[in-house]
């Protein structure tokens, strides 16, 4: 109130009562930020003493008030230079003193004026003024501008959401273009400086132009504002709508009693975590994830991700199950009952059991069974699991080419899952299961990384107690898992991986073993598969031998089993047709059922002529015999090699030829005789690629036999690399080669002496049936091979 009292002080009745203003002089009110136009009624708030005094004076004397804009709105006592010189003379219609001490006047503009001079000596600002007349002449141009202005104004009013409804009507009713311009200038939202400029424009046409420009700008701003606010509203309403729907859904679920589902799920998971017996580190992690899940809406996509992850965590076998005491005798019994032979493997498994019995927390071995197909690697794994009473899971690695298949994908990926190893662990449900990593030799490397490298961690006893799957992100102890790898070709298993495993070779079976296996397992199984029993049909021993020798030639027993199955199906057909008699299948009864023998004793058939020697080859399927044929035809002294021979084998043939040429003297052949002849070496079967140095001895013997015209003994097979000094060097795959020789009906095998160390691995049966000749030089071979 003190301010207002001060103001009143400045306008005490006594001060004002005696004041007389000369004619042409009016009291002036300075305003900060508004411009009063003629005709327009506008409220003005006045606070400054001189202004109040001026208003009071004007009212009391029924005089007009001059209203002038100051240039700077912040100046409290502006100097006269800072006041515009043109303003509006106005009549005060109302006067109000508000309770807070401010004074308000409502005034109506009358006419524009120009200040001629300011007068000093009054309690208010006074000025001598001259009224300005405006040009209101109506030209067609002015009319056009007026029309345009009305149009713009209508648009503007339509776009101003809170415009008073009367406003549009009032605008329409104004007929004078000057008044329309002034009224528009009053209400359009432009700075006071611009309004003052319009006020000062006396000519109608430029005034209309200025107002039009201001309205146009304003319209543009309004349009933009509207656009922006509409966009905002759109995005806002979209998210709000979703939120609202979500809330509604929640309410509906609550009404339906489904609200508890979420918390029930959380409680269930919580219990599962407790029950899973996780290591402390993992449990902390799981509980943290559970907390996150609890706070999440079931609607969110993340929910199911976390849920799946927790399901994986709780379903993994973290704890070690209680196992009954191991009975080694019983395990041996089971192993023997299910697999014939394979003593070395069985012994290794029993050793493991014995060690485990003495030291229960010891590490499990990592074994690898290597051998040709059909020798029982996979079924042996299953039977080991049965023997020691553990769960068995198989992870097939054939064709696996992505590191992520072993170790899983990170959880950030869509559809991420743990790798094969962890998946197998969940399937096994026990941390000390037997995990068979099948087809280790068929891993391949690709752009997605090397799965073998990931397996290194799995198979390293020093590391696999904290195997970290990318998906799980927490360590898992694999050290109690008994890993068994299998491979056909141990050489194809990456070196570091091979190094981590204890390789147990499963060579092929010999005839007697196959017979035994057929009697013990295959016949029973096939009888069962055909719905027969041993009371209805039988395969004689002679027939089985005939099948093994002439119908199958394999390291394993798969083909044998198929043949037995074919025989029994033949019987089954007869039985099903009503033949009640007992069926006995003998050796001579095979041909009508299985067809003519597929293999025969080729060795005896084909080496009756000079220039043919029998070699031994190693194949992934277990080894085979091959023939080296050499002949000499008229030509130009060159060596022709055919039969899909690899580079190493070609070089080996060249070496053999050179060695033979060194012995021409002993054979009584002149070197020049040789010059006009081509030597042709062929190794059937021509379609199968062959390579390796081990046929060196056979090629040499074939060449020598051809030149000396002495045939090679048909029951002798040979293997060994040759050097130019005539030495016989050791080769690999001795076991498989000997078994192949045995299968092919060979009686004598010549081997490099330095391969004698491999003899231990050779099955007893083969050792007894074959005559083995150990070679130091090629002369030893010649001495024994030629007839």
């Amino acid at each position: 109130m003190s301010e207002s009292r001060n103001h009143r002080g400045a306008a005490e009745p006594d001060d004002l009562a005696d004041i007389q203003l000369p004619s042409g002089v009016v009291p002036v009110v300075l305003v900060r930020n508004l411009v009063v136009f003629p005709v327009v009624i506008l409220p003005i708030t006045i606070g400054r003493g001189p202004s109040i005094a001026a208003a009071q004076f004007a009212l009391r004397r029924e005089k007009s008030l001059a209203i002038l804009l100051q240039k700077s709105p912040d100046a409290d006592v502006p100097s006269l230079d800072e006041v515009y010189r043109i303003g509006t003379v106005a009549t005060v219609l109302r006067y109000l003193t508000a309770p807070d001490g401010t004074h308000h006047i409502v005034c109506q503009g009358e006419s524009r004026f120009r200040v001629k001079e300011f007068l000093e000596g009054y309690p208010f600002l006074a000025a001598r003024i001259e009224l300005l007349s405006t040009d209101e002449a109506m030209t067609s141009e002015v009319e056009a501008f007026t029309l345009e202005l009305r149009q713009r104004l209508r648009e503007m009013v339509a776009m101003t959401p809170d415009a008073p409804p009367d406003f549009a009507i009032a605008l329409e009713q104004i007929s004078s273009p000057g008044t329309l311009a002034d009224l528009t200038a009053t209400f359009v939202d432009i700075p006071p400086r611009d309004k003052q400029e319009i006020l000062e424009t006396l000519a109608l046409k430029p005034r209309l132009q200025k107002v039009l420009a201001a309205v146009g700008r304003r319209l543009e701003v309004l349009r933009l504002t509207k656009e922006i606010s509409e966009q905002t509203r759109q995005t806002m309403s979209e998210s709000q709508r979703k939120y609202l729907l979500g809330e509604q859904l929640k309410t509906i679920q609550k009404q339906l009693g489904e609200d508890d589902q979420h918390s029930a799920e959380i409680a269930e998971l919580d219990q599962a975590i407790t029950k899973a017996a996780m290591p402390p580190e993992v449990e902390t992690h799981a509980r943290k994830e559970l907390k996150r899940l609890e706070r999440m809406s079931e609607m969110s996509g993340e929910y199911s991700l976390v849920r799946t992850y927790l399901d994986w965590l709780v379903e993994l076998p973290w704890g070690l199950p209680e196992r009954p005491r191991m009975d080694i005798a019983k395990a041996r019994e089971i192993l023997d009952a299910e697999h014939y032979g394979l003593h070395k493997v069985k012994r290794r498994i029993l050793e493991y059991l014995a060690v485990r019995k003495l030291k229960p927390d010891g590490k499990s071995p990592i074994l690898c069974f290597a051998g040709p197909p059909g020798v029982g690697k996979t079924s042996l794994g299953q039977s080991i699991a049965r023997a020691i009473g553990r769960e068995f899971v198989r992870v097939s690695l054939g064709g696996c080419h992505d590191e992520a298949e072993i170790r899983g994908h990170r959880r950030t990926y869509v559809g991420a899952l743990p790798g094969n190893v962890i998946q197998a662990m969940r399937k096994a449900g026990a941390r000390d299961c037997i995990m068979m990593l099948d087809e280790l030799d068929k891993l391949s490397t690709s752009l997605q990384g090397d799965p073998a490298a990931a397996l290194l961690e799995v198979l390293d006893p020093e590391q696999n107690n904290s195997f970290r799957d990318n998906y799980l992100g927490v360590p898992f102890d694999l050290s109690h898992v008994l890993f068994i790898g299998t491979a056909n070709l141990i050489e194809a298993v990456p070196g570091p991986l091979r190094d981590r495993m204890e390789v147990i070779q499963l060579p092929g079976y010999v005839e007697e073993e196959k017979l035994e296996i057929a009697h013990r397992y295959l016949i029973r199984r096939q009888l069962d598969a055909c719905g027969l029993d041993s009371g209805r049909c039988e395969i004689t021993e002679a027939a089985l031998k005939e099948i093994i020798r002439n119908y199958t030639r394999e390291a394993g027993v798969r083909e044998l089993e198929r043949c037995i199955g074919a025989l029994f199906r033949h019987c089954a057909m007869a039985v099903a047709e009503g033949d009640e008699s007992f069926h006995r299948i003998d050796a001579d009864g095979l041909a009508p059922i299985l067809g003519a023998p597929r293999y025969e004793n080729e060795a005896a058939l084909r080496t009756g002529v000079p220039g043919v020697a029998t070699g031994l080859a190693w194949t992934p399927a277990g080894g085979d015999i091959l023939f080296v044929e050499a002949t000499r035809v008229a030509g130009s002294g060159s060596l022709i090699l055919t039969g899909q021979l690899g580079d190493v084998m070609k070089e080996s043939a060249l070496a053999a030829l050179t060695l033979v040429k060194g012995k021409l003297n002993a054979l009584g052949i002149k070197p020049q005789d040789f010059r006009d002849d081509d030597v042709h070496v062929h190794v059937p079967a021509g379609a199968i690629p062959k390579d390796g140095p081990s046929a060196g001895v056979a090629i040499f013997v074939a060449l020598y036999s051809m030149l000396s015209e002495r045939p090679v003994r048909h029951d002798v097979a040979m293997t060994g690399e040759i050097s130019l000094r005539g030495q016989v060097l050791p080769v690999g795959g001795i076991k498989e080669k000997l078994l192949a020789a045995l299968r092919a009906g060979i009686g004598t095998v010549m081997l490099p002496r330095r391969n004698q160390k491999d003899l231990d691995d050779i099955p007893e049966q083969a050792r007894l049936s074959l005559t083995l000749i150990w070679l130091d030089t090629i002369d030893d071979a010649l001495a024994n091979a030629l007839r």
Partner: protein
Amino acid sequence: MDIFENGRELRVIVLLPGVAADRMTVELDDGVLTITGSSPFPVPAHAHIHRLEIPYGGFEKKIQLPSSIYELTASEYRDGCLTLRLSKAGGRQG
């Protein structure tokens, strides 16, 4: 203001409180009724104004009458209302 029409008579009532009857004039010209007058500031010039809402000073009101030819027959100022009676002169439109 109110305008009533009753047969051949038109009655116009204008609210003009605080205006002395002798300070107003009524003119009828070509169907437009013009009332002019003034009400002086009611207090001495040295009184301080706290609130001023009643209009003072000169005023002029123009009233467009329903189209016809009228003749002012009577005027009465009572209770702050000026009541004017007009009668239709011809009954035909001018």
